[in-house]
Every structure is written in C-alpha cells, then in structure tokens.
C-alpha cells in the first residue's frame, strides 16, 4: 500500500513536471498537423481537376494563391507561389485559356530551380525534403522539362510558332543542363519534348531544324506518331536526317497541295502526388539501410537510431510518400468525321514521378532518421543550456522544448510536387483536306469536340486536357 502511494506520488510529480511539456507538445502537434503543407493546400484543386471540373479547380487555385481571378497575381508571393502558378497554368490550359496559362508558366519557369542531387549527401537530401518547404520549390528534372513542354502546347494550340520556338529553345537549354546531372533513364522524358520542338520549328517554317529535333526524339526512344510526322515533313520540304534514312526510302511520297496536318495532344489522368507518411522506426531503419541505395543510412547512424529506438525516444519518422494519382488506362482515341487518327502514349509522367521518388526513397527515410536523431540530441542540449542560463529547471525545460518543437516543425515533410500534371500524354496525327473539321477525342466514356481549320501544308494542333 505504502509502495503504491509512493508510486502514486512519483507519477503525480512526473505528471506535474510533464504538464507544460504535454501542453506545448499538443499545441505543437496541432500546429504541425494544422499546417498540412502543400498537399492540404492543393487538395481541393487536385480533386476538382481529377473529377474533370477545371472551373472549380481554377477557383481553388486562385484561393490557394490568395487572388480572386485568374488574371491576378499574388501581391505578396511566398515560397509556394511559383508552384501554385504552375498548377493554375495547367488548369487554365485545360480550360483552353492558353494565353493566361503561358503567362503563369513563364513566371514560374523563371523562379523554379531544378533539384540537383548529383552529389547527394544525406544532409542536402534532408534539407530538400524537410526544411525547404519554407523556400522556393526545387523541381524534379522531369518536372522542369515538362514545364517547357506543356507550355509549348499553349503556343502550338494557338498556332503561335514564335512563342513555341522560344519554349523549344528553353527546353533545349534545360535538356543540355539536365543531361549533365541525370542519368540515361532521364532520356525517356525527352522524346515528347523533342517531338514537340520539331512540331514548333516545322510550324515556324524551319524544316531542317524540325527534322533535327525529330531525330533527337528518335534517339530518346521515339513517340508513336514520329515516323508519320517525319515522312510527311520529308516529302513536303525535301529535308533529311541520317537517322531517318530507312524511313525516307520506305515512306517518302509526293506532296499533295490541298492537304494539311493535325496533331492532337491528349493529356489525361493525374500524376502521383506526395503525402506525409508516418513510418515505424524499425521499418524505417530497415528501409533506409540498403548500402546500394542513394543516401542510405550509415552503419554508425543505424546503431545510433537503434539505440534511441530501444530507449523509446524514437518511435516514428515522417517522410513524403508518393501515392497514386488517376490512371486512365489506354482507352483514348481521336477521330475526324469518322476517320480514326493514329494515336499512342508518348509519355507517362506517373512512371517518371515514381522512378524519381524510388531513386531517393531510401535516402529520404535515412534523412528523416538523421534529422530525428539530431532533434533528440538538440532537445537535450537546449534543455541543458536553458538550465544553465536561467538556473531554473522549468524555464530550462521550456527552452529545451522550444528547440525540440522548432525541430519537429522543421521535420514536416515537404509534400510539394506538380500535382495537376497529367498522368499520360497521348499523341494522334493525321492528314486532312484543307478546310474546317471537327475533331472528336474520347477518354474513357467522356468525349470532347474541337473545331479546327486546316490550311494546306500546315500543321494545326489540338489540345485536350480537361478530361482527367
């Protein structure tokens, strides 16, 4: 009984000592969960676009940007503004508001840096993944290249070759830069961009440049309608590229004067996005300890983490987990007055996002563990330092908690990514008689009609990106 009372007193004392900590911890937890980060901020627009309601998505994007209309730009931009402008630009493009979409893309393009983790020490990865949501987002290489690619579509759909060629050149500059910092797997993302560069230069009356870009698209793995596009260009403009030597003999044909060309671009589905995920410490140590993975946990840190885990100091780690977006399968078709156009998937952004994420997953979890270890140690140091400064246990504890709280807040995973990016890009190509035509695009059980004017010898581009 006595022992029980002693135990009770001890528990009570512990309770009294812990009360400020508990209250502050609850407040901090509320603060951290209250600021749901980018994922929470863009949840509305992502869901609206995902249900093919781009007008609602636009209203949500404006709300997230703190403006009341699509023409407006935020008066006080913050760290999320460039990425939110990319989201709004994508939505505006889906609505066919190409000029406004270009403006938003261009502003964002100048502010978004590329994430370069070539020499990725865990510290750098950790900074990117956890503390940097207070700074401007650093785009993944595939996102940066797609930004120019998707903006090129804005100009192509309006028939503005000059602007499309500017975006094509910007794509080339980024491509050259990214080729230095990414490996060969990145090549797959270049085929669509290079193909559209070719279309831009063909539209701008520079066939020799165009065929060079088509050649680059071929080198990067090609796109479904590449050979038809190149055969048509070669027959009309008498240009050639060694990479299409076989094609020239096989498919070269005499140009027909009253024929024009149509390229249909369909962007459907939603790319995977990131959510904050809590992972038990044991599972986290296992997932991050593969020495063959980039930024894996060092043996010393593994031992430290296991020690802290056994003491019960570390229980969970937070990291940005990639979750599925919307996949539309392959049921996409385009036809003009009953004539089916050749079509196929040119790029799968979902695969690119997953590949990029998987490459750094172990490193991300390792970085989360290292940050947590640092936090635990810094919390202790803060408490000791506070005690010395104030000679008061309670004040010292508060300072220690403030340090720990600050580190907890900083450990909120950065869930930013281009969430409105379509999952897949389809291309359809064909030739039509000069004049007005109706193009019908089907994605699953939804259809869209677009009117186009075909001019002899010229390419018209149709974009459909409002069916997700």
């Amino acid at each position: 009984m006595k022992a029980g009372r002693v135990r009770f007193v001890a528990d009570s004392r512990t309770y009294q000592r812990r009360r400020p900590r508990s209250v502050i911890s609850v407040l901090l937890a509320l603060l951290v969960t209250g600021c749901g980060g980018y994922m929470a901020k863009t949840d509305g627009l992502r869901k609206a676009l995902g249900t093919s309601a781009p007008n609602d998505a636009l209203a949500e994007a404006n709300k997230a940007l703190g403006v009341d209309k699509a023409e407006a730009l935020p008066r006080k931009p913050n760290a999320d503004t460039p990425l939110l402008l990319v989201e709004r630009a994508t939505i505006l493009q889906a609505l066919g508001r190409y000029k406004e979409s270009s403006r938003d893309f261009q502003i964002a393009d100048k502010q978004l840096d590329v994430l370069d983790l070539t020499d990725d020490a865990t510290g750098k990865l950790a900074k990117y993944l956890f503390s940097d949501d207070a700074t401007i987002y650093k785009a993944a290489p595939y996102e940066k290249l797609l930004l120019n690619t998707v903006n090129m579509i804005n100009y192509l759909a309006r028939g503005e070759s000059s602007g499309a060629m500017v975006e094509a050149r910007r794509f080339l500059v980024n491509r050259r830069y990214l080729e230095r910092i990414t490996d060969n797997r990145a090549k797959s993302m270049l085929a669509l961009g290079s193909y559209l560069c070719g279309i831009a230069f063909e539209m701008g009356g520079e066939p020799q440049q165009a065929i060079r870009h088509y050649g680059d698209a071929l080198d990067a793995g090609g796109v479904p309608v590449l050979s038809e596009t190149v055969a048509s260009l070669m027959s009309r403009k008498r240009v050639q590229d060694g990479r299409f030597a076989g094609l020239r003999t096989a498919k070269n044909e005499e140009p027909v004067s009253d024929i024009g060309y149509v390229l249909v671009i369909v962007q459907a589905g939603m790319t995977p996005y990131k959510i904050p995920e809590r992972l038990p410490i044991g599972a986290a140590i296992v997932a991050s300890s593969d020495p063959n993975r980039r930024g894996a946990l060092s043996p010393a840190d593994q031992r430290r983490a296991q020690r802290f885990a056994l003491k019960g100091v570390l229980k969970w780690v937070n990291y940005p987990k990639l979750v599925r977006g919307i996949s539309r399968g392959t049921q996409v078709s385009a036809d003009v007055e009953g004539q089916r156009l050749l079509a196929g998937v040119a790029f799968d952004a979902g695969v690119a996002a997953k590949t990029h994420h998987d490459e750094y997953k172990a490193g991300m979890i390792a970085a989360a563990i290292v940050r947590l270890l640092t936090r635990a140690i810094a919390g202790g140091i803060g408490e000791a330092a506070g005690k010395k400064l104030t000679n008061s246990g309670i004040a010292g504890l508060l300072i220690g908690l403030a340090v720990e709280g600050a580190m907890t807040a900083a450990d909120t995973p950065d869930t930013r990514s281009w969430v409105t990016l379509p999952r897949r890009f389809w291309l359809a190509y064909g030739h039509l008689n000069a004049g007005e035509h109706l193009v019908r695009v089907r994605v699953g059980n939804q259809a869209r009609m677009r009117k186009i004017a075909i001019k002899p010898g010229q390419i018209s581009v149709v974009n459909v990106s409002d069916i997700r």
Partner: protein
Amino acid sequence: MKLRIISLFAAIGLLFSLGCSGQPAFVRGSDVPELDNFALSTGLDKKDLERLFNENAKSLQESGIMRKWKRWSMEDKEASVSISQIANQTTEHIDGELKTLLSKFETQLANSGFVRVIDQAAQLSLIENMKKQQSAAFDPDNAAQLGKAIGVKYIITGKLYTNDEKSGRERRVQYFLFMRVLEVETGAVRWQNEANLTKGLIN
C-alpha cells in the same frame, strides 16, 4: 539573469521589426536616376534595347548604303525602305521588346529625311503572312519577294538570337542582334551588322 533574458528577447524583437519594415514602394525613373541601371532579369530591358539599337544604328549611319541614300536625297531621288521584322530566335519571350526596337529603327530612318519609310501598318496582312513563317522573312529571296509585293527598293530585316547556358543557379544569356539591308530588285545584301550583349544571373 533576468536582464539577460529580457535583452535576448528585445534583440529578437528588434530583428523581427527590422525584417518586416521593408515595404515595397513605387518610384519614378526621374526620382531614382539609377533605376534603369539595374538588371532585373536575363530578358531585354530599355537599356539593353538602346545599346543594341545604338550599335546597329551607328553602323548603318556610317555605311555605304546610307551615303548612297544621302546622295540620292540631294539629287531629289528618294529610296523607299521598309523594315520587315526582327525574328525572335532567342530563349526569351521578348516579341514586345523587339517591336519597340523595330519602331525605334523606323522612327530614326523616317526622321533622317533621306529615305521614304513605308508604314508597316499598311502592309499588315503581308507581314502577318511572313510571321507565320518567321525564318523565311530573314531569307534574302523571301524578303525580296515581300519587298516587291510592298513596292519598296530596300527592305531591312533582322534576327535576334541567343547563346544560353546554365549551370546550377547560374545562367548566362548572350544576345546577338543581326541586321541587314537588302536590295529588293537584286536580293543583294547592302549592309549588315551584328551587335551583342550579355546578361546573366550569378551567385
């Protein structure tokens, strides 16, 4: 001890207030003479356009074709000139700036009194057609064809292109403005010059 804590919080408060006090304000170039001297982007601003323009205009002023036009002017003959367009072959969306550059060139030529400048607005549809095939406008044959259609003796064309490089956060854009005067009848190049400037983003 209390004093030290109060001082610490006071210092933090002061830092916060200093950090938040910088409110942006609109200014006039006449009030802030240095305003035009700062580069705010790697695009072209007024100062860059003036530099590119001045260099090419100076070269044209000193050229043989200008001396010929002056001589004709004294003999009561007038050369008719049109400026077709300056093709944007850069990595920047600067079509608006190029139109400004073109207008400056046109204004200077018109005010020189040596040549008769054909108003571009009068040839809008032809120019629009050439814009559809931008590079074609710079091609001597096509420019000569355009000149014949407009009914001028000389046509001025140009192109602005860039060499754009990037490394990490750093970026360098080298601009080259290439301009030429073509004789419509023969397609011969009577003057050409290239002006250049570099802009960059450095850490």
